[in-house]
């Protein structure tokens, strides 16, 4: 029994060594937490900056739409019937006499009877397929880890 006690005492680590290990573990944990916090802060800051940019762009979009409306209305006023007539008269134009018009047949020509305001198909597709916002800008760190793991698992499964 005495022999056994001597062996245990012999292999037990020194007191200062145990303490150093605990301190090391604590520092390791602290560094790990700091890293996670750093990544979290980094992602959060980027998401916030992106969100702020979205807000600014949305405001800009509203301003631009308003400006477009202003410009369109202004242009319509400048090219209104009254002002165009005034400009035509100022330049010496006169209303045409129906009897003086010469009509020419243009085979295959079909005059347009009304305006077509449809946007080209390509534009519509482009609009509908445009990404609104990447998930990386909105998801939390946990969401990101989950998504990455799920994506990795599904990619691995396919392989």
């Amino acid at each position, binding site marked *: 029994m005495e022999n056994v006690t001597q062996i245990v005492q012999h292999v037990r680590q*020194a007191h200062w060594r145990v303490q150093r290990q605990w301190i090391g573990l604590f520092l390791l944990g602290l560094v790990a937490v700091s890293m996670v916090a750093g990544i979290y802060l980094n992602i959060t800051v980027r998401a916030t900056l992106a969100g702020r940019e979205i807000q600014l762009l949305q405001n800009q979009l509203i301003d631009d739409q*308003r400006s477009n409306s202003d410009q369109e209305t202004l242009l319509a006023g400048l090219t209104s019937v009254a002002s165009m007539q005034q400009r035509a008269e100022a330049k010496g134009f006169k209303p045409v006499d*129906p009897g003086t*018009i010469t009509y020419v047949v243009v085979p295959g020509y079909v005059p347009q009877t009304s305006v077509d305001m449809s946007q080209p198909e390509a534009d519509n597709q482009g609009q509908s397929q445009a990404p609104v916002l990447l998930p990386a800008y909105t998801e939390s760190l946990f969401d990101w880890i989950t998504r990455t793991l799920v994506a990795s698992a599904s990619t691995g499964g396919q392989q």
Partner: protein
Amino acid sequence: MRKFSYWRYLTVAITLGLIGASILVQIVRIQNSPEVAGVIGQGAYIWKTFYPARGEIYDRNGNLLAGNKTVYEIGVDLTALPNAKDASLKMENDIALAAQSALGMDPADALSRMTTAPAGAQYITLEDYVAPDQADQLMTLQKNDQANPSGPNLDAVHFTAHLMRSYPENDLASTIIGYVTRDNHGYMGVEEKYDNILAGIPVTKLVPADPRQAVDYPQIEPGQTLILTIDREIQASVEKILDDALVSTGAASGTIIVMDPKTGEILAMSSTPRMNLNDYTQVSQIFPGETPFNRAISEAYEPGSVAKIFTMASALDNGTIKPGTIFLDTGTIVVGGVPIHDWDNGAWGYQDMTGCLANSLNVCLAWVSTKMGNNAFYSYMQRFGLGQLTGIDLAGEVPGRQKLPGDGDWTPVDLGTNAFGQGVAITPIQMVMAASALANNGQMVYPHVLLAEVRDGHQSDMATHIVGNPISADTAHIITNMLHDSLLKESSTALLGGYSIAGKTGTAQIPTSTGYDPVNINASFIGWGPIDNPRFLVYVWLEKPQSNKAASVVAAPIFKQVIEKLVVLMGIPPDVAVAQTTGQ
């Protein structure tokens, strides 16, 4: 050595641990601080109403008739006023004086709004719908004052830009378009009829102030864009012709409608008075009392002789008469015990049916309707839609009235008088719709002003809608030719050289509460052409012209002026040119 290392490690661990712990404590403290919680609670989400831009209105060629422009709401952020009473009052005074200088506001009124704001109010509006140049003046004052700390302080003045309706053509087509008030509601015309789709749907939503939630901003769909059937060049020409006609004839009011008889598309529609839509506050002065906003759809009246075309078409279709049927006009016919006379109280002798139309003989047409009988005659009038709503897509249409046998106020003489447009109240748009059956192979088209809707970049065109076939195609051709011949026969002033036109004048007495007005008349003309391939149907109505009491003198020349413009603006070649190209 070992002891030294131990203390060194322990010191580092404790220091780092304390730093980390203090950061964590600080994070937890900030997160749970009542002060921060208050800020987050107020600012994290804000109730905000998003008003979509009102849809634009274009004419058929893409010219803007109704758009939007920027205006400003100018208010005061009461929370930005200093807490000290004197300082607050000084700033309020500064703002009131600036509002007077830039906006022309009464400074006492501006000051009163700020000082009498309800307790707890954070914001008050000084003025809304401020023009950008006025708002710019105030913004400049604010900037200048910020650069000069000892000067007036306008920091609490807040500018909010938004859109308001604008009509670049002012009064052009105003009776068709209608107007929009400051509460974004459409009144009259297209603005009222299509208010729901033009206005879009305002969305009120809790909006996150947190930028990380910015994606939750609502996407507001703007109001739908509308394209009208109106051609602004034709509309402008028609309005000018009408305005000139009122001056030259001394008429109290007038109406002109131009429609494509094959599709029902209204190319122009004008009536008087009209208003500048940008100044809708004048509406009650311009349209006092019962004055209709758009006479073309909202004023029913006795049309008189123009209605004879429907009687004649019905009788031809019914087989009661043929174009060559001869009638002996003795100057009087008795219907229901009441004698009916011709417009000149004369006797016109033997007349074929074309002669009856050309000479506009009341006696002849009363004879035709009595030959048809009540059932057949009124059945046809119903099929033509007389006295009924056409359903045109404009707000404010009235039905008028066609009395029918069995109605309390119907008397047997009505069968005779209704045949030449007396004792019946119809609107100009009903007249145009009914006449489209004569011009369009018997097919009566639905009159409309909406050509297409545009949403999300896709244009949906409105289809032509046939509302009935009151007469056969053969009858339509026959009556058209009869009306063409009758115009030639009377050398009508409505005729335009080179173009085949069918038409009919209408000189109608005006009923009053004591009988017919002995002085004033309604003068009208309805016509279409070219008769082989009708491209236009035009109705002219002048109310109480003073220069002459005959429609052939006052209304027919107006019709000619309109079609003179139409053939140019619509590129309609003369009949000879068409015959050459088609080898006829």
